[in-house]
């Protein structure tokens, strides 16, 4: 399961599994954000390539409008996926403390 919702101070909190089944819901939510957005991933357990697609599409849209998507609190699995896909070069990432 996946939840994605606004948190405090412009942060978006994503929790659970961002897989192919959940990607459309995540995309629908992120299509509505603007500006500089921090995605709190500390409770994001898992991401697949469908989830990467959602993040890439959102980043492209935000960068085009002078904003950006930043990721915070990413776990080891998600970090690995970002590293191997080169997404660590496309996002500002703050790993889990």
């Amino acid at each position, binding site marked *: 399961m996946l939840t994605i919702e606004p948190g405090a101070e412009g942060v978006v909190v994503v929790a659970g*599994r961002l897989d192919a089944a959940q990607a459309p819901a995540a995309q629908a939510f992120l299509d509505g954000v603007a500006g500089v957005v921090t995605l709190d991933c500390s409770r994001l357990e898992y991401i697949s390539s469908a989830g*990467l697609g959602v993040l890439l599409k959102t980043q492209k849209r935000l960068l085009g409008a002078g904003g950006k998507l930043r990721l915070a609190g990413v776990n080891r699995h998600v970090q690995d996926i970002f590293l*191997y896909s080169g997404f660590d070069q496309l996002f500002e990432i703050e790993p889990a403390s």
Partner: protein
Amino acid sequence: MTARPRQHPLSVGDLEAILEVTRALASPFDLMTMLAEVVSAAKQVLKADRGSVWLYDAASDELVLEVATGIPPVREPASAGLVGACARSREIINVPDCYADPRFDRRVDRESGYRTRCLLTLPLVDHQDALVGVMQLLNKEGGAFDADDEAVAVALAAQCAVALQRVRMTEALIEGERLRNELGMARVVQMSALPATMPVLPGYDVFGVSKPAEQTGGDTFDLQLTERGLLVVLADAAGHGIAPALSVTQMHAMLRMAFRLGSDLQTSFAQVNNQLAETLPDDRFITAFVGLLDAASHRVEYQSGGQGPLLHFHAANATCTRHGPTCLPLGAMPAASLRPAATFDLAPGDILVLLSDGVYEYQDANHAEFGEARVEAVVASHAGKPMAELAAMLETELVAFARGVPQQDDVTMVLIKREASAPAEHLDFARRIDALQDIVAFTAEAFRRQGVDRELLPSVDFALEELFTNMVKYGGGSSAPVGIDIVGVPGGVEVTLTDHDVERFDVTRAPDADVSLPIEQRVPGGLGLHLIRRLVDAVEYDYSEAARRSRITFRKTGPDATRRPAEGRGGHVDD
């Protein structure tokens, strides 16, 4: 019977005090002395002002409080009051303020003039899960009993229950005149300490047996599930007569107590050694293997005080590795420091073979010994059998070897086999993206049942999702379900996806994505296979023309495979 785990680690001083009590409880006493010992031990360890033990009389379903020798005991139905509630629920009851609790019966205080502030009531349940009685402790020094006290009380109660049960049993035997001497009694005590049932550990076949010699011997073993893994003990106290039987029983109780309280291997081993070194006569010691098996990592961590050889049978090549002792026997001398524990890892089908010297030194009429080579041969030829059968085979071979010469020493065997891989877990899934949730649940359950390291789960989930969604997207109209098989392999797991009624499409030939492109040129998609190749060990594709069936198999081993460094790219973070 459960209690909350301790909040704070036990201090070495506390552990020492509890082990001292445990050692004392393992000595033979009559019932009244033992009751007094148990109460005094509990008061001391839990810093309680008063204590009492109600014994359970199963015949009348009553709880009986022995007051003093010669005075008729107090009897209560096993349903009355806090003691009765505890006997029924077998749960610890902690009442921090008695006068605020309606279950507390104030009559006793009125009659005695004593003021009960707080009360800990705990069930005494023996190894065989039988209710022995209920212990009550009153008025904790300087406050109420807390969660740490509860945890210690539960561990102590288990020892008290066993000690009391043992005394009742020996008293019954004495009455029946079946035990004519102290040695016989000590031997009964020694054997009663052995586990009555074998612990159930998924993925493992665990078996232990001890066959006492007619006259003398000091063997014991233990197999217990603890917070830190399966506790494995095989020990042999040196010497003849009553003393070895007694000291090995004490050691058994102390080790069990230390691990119940959550102590680690090094602390437990060192503390038990030091207590034994203090209390055993100079010419006495105990050779002991004390190990912990972590069923998730399949690693055995151990100290072997003078006990050896221990055999590690390798299923892969049907040979044994022999390991020697790591330190001096227990109780030989106080140990200022202990070397780090030794370890070895069990692969599927491997067996840890722990045998007392009564096996290796079993003699025939010419004083020839059974020896290690014969043991290894028996193990190798029966390694595929259940461990209880392997133990029986070893015993048969010993008797055949001795040709009528009677058993001279205790024969004790502890055999622990990691099961050869279980049959693969299989399930079919509808060809729909929303089947992913069921696939995730199935995979996690298969990991648990096959004993696969959960560290590998995210990578396997990832590869499965990518391959499954590919099949959904490019299945060309097939409506057949997709089959998934998961099986544990040495160091990891093998997963197979089977896709029916489809054209050949070798997904493993998909090119790698160029992950160094600037963001304007990156597009969603095309990353699945690229990532799978980096997250799992190997991906293979197989197609059957006749069956129109695609099969993709991948393996994932080693917890650190995902930490391979990225190649050929700069490391700075884009801002």
